[in-house]
């Protein structure tokens, strides 16, 4: 173990070497870091914090001010100020707690004496084409990457590491390409092939691996961190957000090797492409992955400002490697971005339809897209056209039906439209008198009853003039409708609600025989808002049935026929509700009528209220009918149609208004015209098909530009949403390369600007991130910050060569990675030496092969893979594998839909980790232990810590314990004794046989485990029952348990956890 002071010495040595190796001073490499660290905060870009009106970041300004006299340090105020003994004059001022070292002072002096040449920040200068240099270790060069890496290594006096053992190389390739370890048989084949055909073999194996769908799963994972993809909204309730088609699109895109520039454009502006297809719209989900809230009391403008800030930050980090978000509150301290430019950039992302509140619903209340499965997609795409055509066809038939209609009308009589069921009609109340307060009741005898108050009659009834029901104007019909629960009966009426805008919030009884004083005993026809319900009640709400229409069926201001049939079964399933003669979808809200329940009450039948109140206020009702039997569906249908049509036909031609003739024509077409009926039937089928597909298809969040609106934003003073500054139009920062002349000033233009080959950043930032995935760190070690305060590239020529090559290849991602994998640099062994540990402690110079602790997902997937448990199923909604209790529960709010974690059963426990349901407030804890981010914000580089909590996961998490048991089982199944089993295990996990030393350690462990489990078979049984999968009876419990422990031991090795 190192001591602190030796580390310090080691670091000093590194610093010293880099200066000593400098042939000539370079501003970007040698001078700018000193100025950035010590001077620019007060003498830089930010005008608000600028002192003494001096800028040192621009040569002209510094010269004019007299701070710098090129070639003459003695005349330069800057030099005088940094060397002075006078504490009042000394720079940097003491209160900044910054201090220049003598070496730094000397260096600044030297720089001014040699002419004080500035350079633009390296990141803003387009990459220059690089000719790979000749190197000493020419024999080690496989491609340009090697020349550029070796050239650097040789300069530092370091030699590359020898090539890795082919097995190790093959394991590394697997983990880098598909994120899974190789199968032993493939290892053997590869080793033989590689020894025989070398590069040719390697190339083919790489291609083969890249063709596997697991390639896309592995690559997508990194992108999803950057895109901050997750399955919940992120804030407050943190409810489910349906977004996974975007995740699947990213996987498919990598598998299809979509060129990166297209990949970028579709995510930034897919909706603005000409006729975007489904995939291009799904891609825009990149911009909808930001966290959102539905917290009551939050302010829309503030939320929108925060969402825009997140989109700008993500955009800046992912595509430009720029920390633009600093400029949200103040001009950037180091990079040439003003606050105004920040908001101009934000403007690109604010001209959209994304809402301020997500509604705690899966669709987030913003633009979404229904995404049918591959199977459904052809029909889904065809249906809108077919439906439109059918409607057109229907319209044409209606227009050409006049002759046939007249022919029918000439002979039609009230009887010819079908029979109105009269059998079992217990009571009928027509409600068509048109004046007065007395109305007729037809039952076994005809009687008259009186409204409770004055009645308002309207002429536009369904059947003649109709009364309006109000509080104080309802109807006590008398002792009718006294049914028991085991009697079948049917009832309903023509109904119209007159309230404009519907009945939202209102409730009332249309028809009821119900005693409110006796726990609401009885039955009714009820409306709640625009939903129709039926109650059959003994005592509410313990002993009752309630069914409601699944949809808002009431169409306000329209006459509709609502009818209920009941079969006397005392079950909710025995009730049907019809709307205009058609049965409608229902939901059961109560179904608890007991055997001894009764519906009998002494209160009379009311129209427009229950016994005491709950009035159907402002509603109109006509033709109330109660039957003492269950009407058949065709009878209800006939009733709905015939009552109105029959009445119209009874009128003479002269009496009929134009509207009434239109009603008759509508009836004719729907009921009597075979051509029209055929079309209507077809249309109904098409619409039902569309609904069915919609019902089984996921939705995904997409981005949509506001039409007819220019992208603008307000500068927010100090970033505060309620302090609006000037309005700015969309623009890119002026110091970066120009906006393409012909590009539109919207996200599409922005996307084109991003992938413009003259953009100095996008390609570099992208290849750097890819490089990071393979080597564990970027050539620029701050992948989100290529700006002035970011790290300098450890090998800029390499970075530039890769960037140019990437663009020249047409942004070919597979080719890019393959080039890395083919390089000798990648093929190096990971072994290090004390010398390299000193000079290249982080392997930034690539003096050896990449070796680092893998991401949690790869560790879990590998465990599943070696145990044979891994499911190959791809795509779909998030899975819920093993998770300790109370992870979600403790975070979630009551009523939240991600408050209770219901673990999957079977396959869902063993899918690849990329499919884990990602709840932002409580991500999978075993992944979090390995630095998986919460995905609340963009992450372009995960932290990589090594902590005891990780050891606890891989030792104790049932996911890993169960995997160890299955690996043990397979090892024992080889039937080749202890050595055979050991070989199987290490080949599977480490892609190699164990050495003699390792063998004796492992067998020693095994003997101890076995001794314990033979003495304590109960322990053995407990261990092999961890996990949902059934345990095997093939081997005795102590043996299987002991080998489970051996497998766990191997799976916990540093070598197993590292690439």
């Amino acid at each position, binding site marked *: 173990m190192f001591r602190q002071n030796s580390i310090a010495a080691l670091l000093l040595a590194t610093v010293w070497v880099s200066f000593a190796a400098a042939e000539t001073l370079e501003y970007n490499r040698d001078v700018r870091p000193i100025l950035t660290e010590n001077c620019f905060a007060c003498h830089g870009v930010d005008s608000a914090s600028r002192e003494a009106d001096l800028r040192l970041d621009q040569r002209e300004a510094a010269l004019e001010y007299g701070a710098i006299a090129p070639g003459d340090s003695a005349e330069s105020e800057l030099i005088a100020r940094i060397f002075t003994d006078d504490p009042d004059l000394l720079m940097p001022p003491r209160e900044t707690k910054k201090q220049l070292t003598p070496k730094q002072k000397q260096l600044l002096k030297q720089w001014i004496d040699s002419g004080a040449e500035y350079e633009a920040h390296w990141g803003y200068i387009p990459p220059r084409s690089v000719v790979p240099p000749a190197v000493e270790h020419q024999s080690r060069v496989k491609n340009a990457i090697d020349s550029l890496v070796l050239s650097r290594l040789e300069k530092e006096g370091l030699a590359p590491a020898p090539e890795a053992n082919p097995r190790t190389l093959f394991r590394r390739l697997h983990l880098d390409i598909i994120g899974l370890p190789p199968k032993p048989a493939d290892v053997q084949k590869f080793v033989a092939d590689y020894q025989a055909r070398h590069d040719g073999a390697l190339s083919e194996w790489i291609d083969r691996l890249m063709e596997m769908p697991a390639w896309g799963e592995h690559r997508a994972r990194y992108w999803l961190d950057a895109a901050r993809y997750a399955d919940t909204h992120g804030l407050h309730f943190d409810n489910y957000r349906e977004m996974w088609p975007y995740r699947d699109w990213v996987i498919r895109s990598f598998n299809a090797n979509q060129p990166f520039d297209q990949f970028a454009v579709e995510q930034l502006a897919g909706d603005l492409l000409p006729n975007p297809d489904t995939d291009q719209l799904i891609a825009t989900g990149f911009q909808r992955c930001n966290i959102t809230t539905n*917290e009551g009391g939050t302010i829309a403008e503030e939320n929108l400002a925060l969402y825009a800030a997140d989109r700008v930050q993500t955009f800046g980090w992912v595509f430009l490697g720029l920390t633009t978000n600093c400029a949200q509150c103040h001009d950037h301290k180091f990079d040439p971005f003003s606050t105004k430019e920040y908001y101009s950039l934000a403007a690109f992302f604010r001209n959209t339809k994304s809402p301020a509140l997500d509604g705690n619903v899966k669709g987030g209340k913003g633009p979404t897209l229904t995404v049918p499965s591959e199977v459904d997609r052809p029909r889904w795409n065809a249906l809108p056209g077919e439906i439109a055509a059918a409607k057109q066809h229907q319209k044409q038939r209606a227009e050409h039906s006049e002759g046939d209609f007249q022919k029918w009308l000439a002979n039609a009589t009230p009887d010819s439209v079908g029979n109105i069921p009269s059998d079992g009609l217990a009571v009928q109340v027509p409600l068509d008198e048109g004046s007065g307060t007395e109305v007729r009741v037809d039952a076994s005898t005809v009687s008259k009853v009186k409204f409770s108050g004055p009645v308002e009659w309207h002429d536009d009834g369904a059947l003649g003039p109709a009364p309006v029901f109000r509080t104080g104007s309802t109807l006590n019909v008398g002792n009718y409708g006294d049914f028991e629960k085991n009697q079948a009966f049917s009832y309903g009426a023509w109904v119209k609600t007159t309230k404009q805008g519907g009945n939202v919030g209102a409730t009332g009884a249309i028809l009821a025989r119900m005693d409110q004083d006796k726990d609401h005993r009885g039955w009714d026809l009820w409306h709640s808002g625009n939903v129709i319900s039926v109650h059959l009640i003994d005592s509410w709400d313990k002993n009752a049935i309630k069914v409601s229409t699944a949809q808002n069926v009431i169409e306000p201001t329209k006459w509709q026929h609502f009818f209920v049939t009941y079969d006397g079964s005392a079950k909710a399933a025995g009730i049907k509700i019809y709307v205009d003669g058609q049965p409608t979808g229902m939901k059961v809200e109560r179904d608890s009528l007991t055997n001894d329940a009764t519906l009998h009450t002494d209160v009379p039948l009311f129209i427009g209220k229950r016994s005491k109140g709950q009035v159907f206020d402002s509603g109109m009702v006509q033709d109330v009918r109660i039957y003492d039997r269950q009407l058949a569906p065709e009878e209800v249908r006939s009733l709905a149609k015939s009552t109105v049509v029959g009445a119209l036909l009874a009128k003479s031609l002269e009496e009929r208004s134009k509207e009434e003739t239109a009603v008759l024509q509508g009836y004719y077409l729907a009921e009597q015209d075979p051509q029209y009926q055929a079309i209507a039937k077809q249309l109904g089928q098409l619409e039902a098909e569309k609904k069915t597909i919609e019902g089984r298809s996921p939705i995904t969040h997409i981005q949509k530009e506001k039409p007819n609106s220019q992208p603008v934003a307000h500068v927010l003073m100090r970033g505060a949403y309620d302090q609006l500054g000037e309005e700015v139009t969309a623009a890119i920062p002026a110091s970066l390369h120009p906006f393409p002349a012909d590009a539109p000033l919207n996200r599409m233009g922005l996307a084109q600007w991003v992938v413009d080959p003259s953009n100095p950043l996008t390609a570099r930032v992208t290849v750097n991130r890819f490089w990071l995935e393979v080597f564990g760190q970027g050539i620029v070690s701050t992948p989100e910050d290529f700006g002035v305060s970011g790290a300098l590239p450890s090998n800029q020529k390499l970075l530039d060569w890769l960037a140019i090559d990437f663009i020249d290849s047409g942004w070919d991602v597979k080719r890019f990675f393959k080039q890395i994998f083919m390089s000798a640099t990648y093929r190096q062994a990971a072994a290090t*030496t004390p010398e390299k540990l000193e000079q290249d402690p982080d392997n930034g110079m690539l003096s050896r092969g990449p070796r680092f602790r893998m991401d949690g997902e790869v560790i879990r997937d590998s465990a599943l893979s070696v145990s044979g448990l891994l499911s190959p199923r791809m795509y779909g909604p998030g899975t819920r594998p093993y998770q300790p209790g109370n992870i979600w529960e403790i975070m979630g*709010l009551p009523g939240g839909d991600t408050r209770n974690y219901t673990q999957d059963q079977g396959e869902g426990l063993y899918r690849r980790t990329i499919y884990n349901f990602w709840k932002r407030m409580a991500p999978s804890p075993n992944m979090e232990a390995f630095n998986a981010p919460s995905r609340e914000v963009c992450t372009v580089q995960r932290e990589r810590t090594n902590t005891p909590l990780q050891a606890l996961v891989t030792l104790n998490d049932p996911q890993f314990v169960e995997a160890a048991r299955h690996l043990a089982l397979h090892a024992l199944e080889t039937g080749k004794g202890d050595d055979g089993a050991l070989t199987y295990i290490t080949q599977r996990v480490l892609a190699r046989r164990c050495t003699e030393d390792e063998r004796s350690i492992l067998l020693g462990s095994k003997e101890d485990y076995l001794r314990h489990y033979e003495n304590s078979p109960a322990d053995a049984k407990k261990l092999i029952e961890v996990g949902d999968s059934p345990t095997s009876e093939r081997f005795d419990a102590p043996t299987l348990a002991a080998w489970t422990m051996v497998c766990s031991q191997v799976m916990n090795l540093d070598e197993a956890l590292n690439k």
Partner: protein
Amino acid sequence: MNDHFTRRQFLASGKHLLGGAALAMLRGDSAYASTGGGLPLETHFLPRAKQVIYLHMVGGPSQMDLFDYKPGLVDYYDQDLPDSIRKGQRLTTMTSGQARFPIAPSKYQFKQAGKCGMWLNQEMLPWLAKKADDICWIRSLHTEAINHEPAIAAMQTGNQVAGRPCLGAWASYGLGAINENLPAFVVLVAIPSNREQEQAISSRLWSAGYLSGEHAGVSFRSQGDPILYINDPPGVPRELRRRSIDGINALNQINYHNLGDPRTHTRMQQYEMAFRMQASVPELTDLSSESDHTFEMYGGEAKKPGTFANSVLMARRLTERGVRFVQIYHNNWDHHSNVGGRLPDQCKDVDKPCYALLEDLEQRGMLDETLVIWGGEFGRTIYSQGQLSPTNYGRDHHPRCFSMWMAGGGAKGGTIYGETDDFSYNIVKDPVHIRDFHATILQLMGFDHERFTYRYQGLDQKLTGVVPAHVIPELIA
């Protein structure tokens, strides 16, 4: 070269190369060594608060019903809040649509407590009142945030936007760990007895932000394993776990020999630490060693896992064992309605246990060096949200003034700091912005908040942010 520089360079280059370092901090009769990468910084002053227990009341307790006594308001019952007081302040959209803002005087009786004469709602807080002279009362906190998510983030991290390191992470970063077998920063989420209107809290509140991940809070759970995955699988007794770790590390040693990667050594140490942590946690969470006297003090609820009383007792045990910073969250203080129905439950949860914690720490001689902080993320409005009656009312969020208290760890007991106007609406004397409060806490921990920084994105980031913050000397003993 000073240690600070070394540490920074070390973290920037050889990230987490080391599992532990040689901080020896003596405490009583046992010697502790720091671990988990918890290399401490050099403090700027002698730390007064070597350990911290922070009790966050999620939702925002009602200051005028507990600490901010406004006797004159009885006469203003159901009268509109004068415009001269509200001054067009922004309201949450929950009450901004309200037609009027009727004043709801507190229904509770206040009495003076202690020699300091702090006016307290002793109906609700009879036990806390006994500690009035040990407590440093602040009635003039203020913040900008007006909704929970950003307000809790601001209170915990100094910034409304999520993702910055919280106070506990800063403490871990600055002071390091004391006990190598336990995390430096532990979080306990207490379950309130009344769960009428809880607010979302998430692990982002105890994240390390841009600091290294090792400084993130480790959540101790009241149900299941106290630390996730701490328990060995069924059928693996301790001695077998010992055997397996020996086996793992023997193999890792061979690997280290072959490849020379120092991180392999780190991993070996982490497996050892995991083993020790497994051994120490059951002892930690086993309350059977606590005396009857303890449970008399904390109340019977302390025996029930997950209660606030149980959590503060755990906090005492964690602190005793060298955990640097214990954060407890207690929910359901968001009283938009039914203050009368809910405040008693809340106070019953916290009153006696808070008293017991202070008393217990004092009895064990730990209070001098342990800072206890109590408070929410903002205050509540004097005007009623929704229905107002003399005995019940609701209160909306109010960022302009709220009350908190501290005790021990160098906080000046018996201080009553800050005043609000007659409506507990605006601060009229000695305002304490939360960044001033943070600066003061850091001072107690031994750090000058201006110099206690971490370099990120080219800037020296600090808890107190860019707007000048001030240590409040009156709060320090």
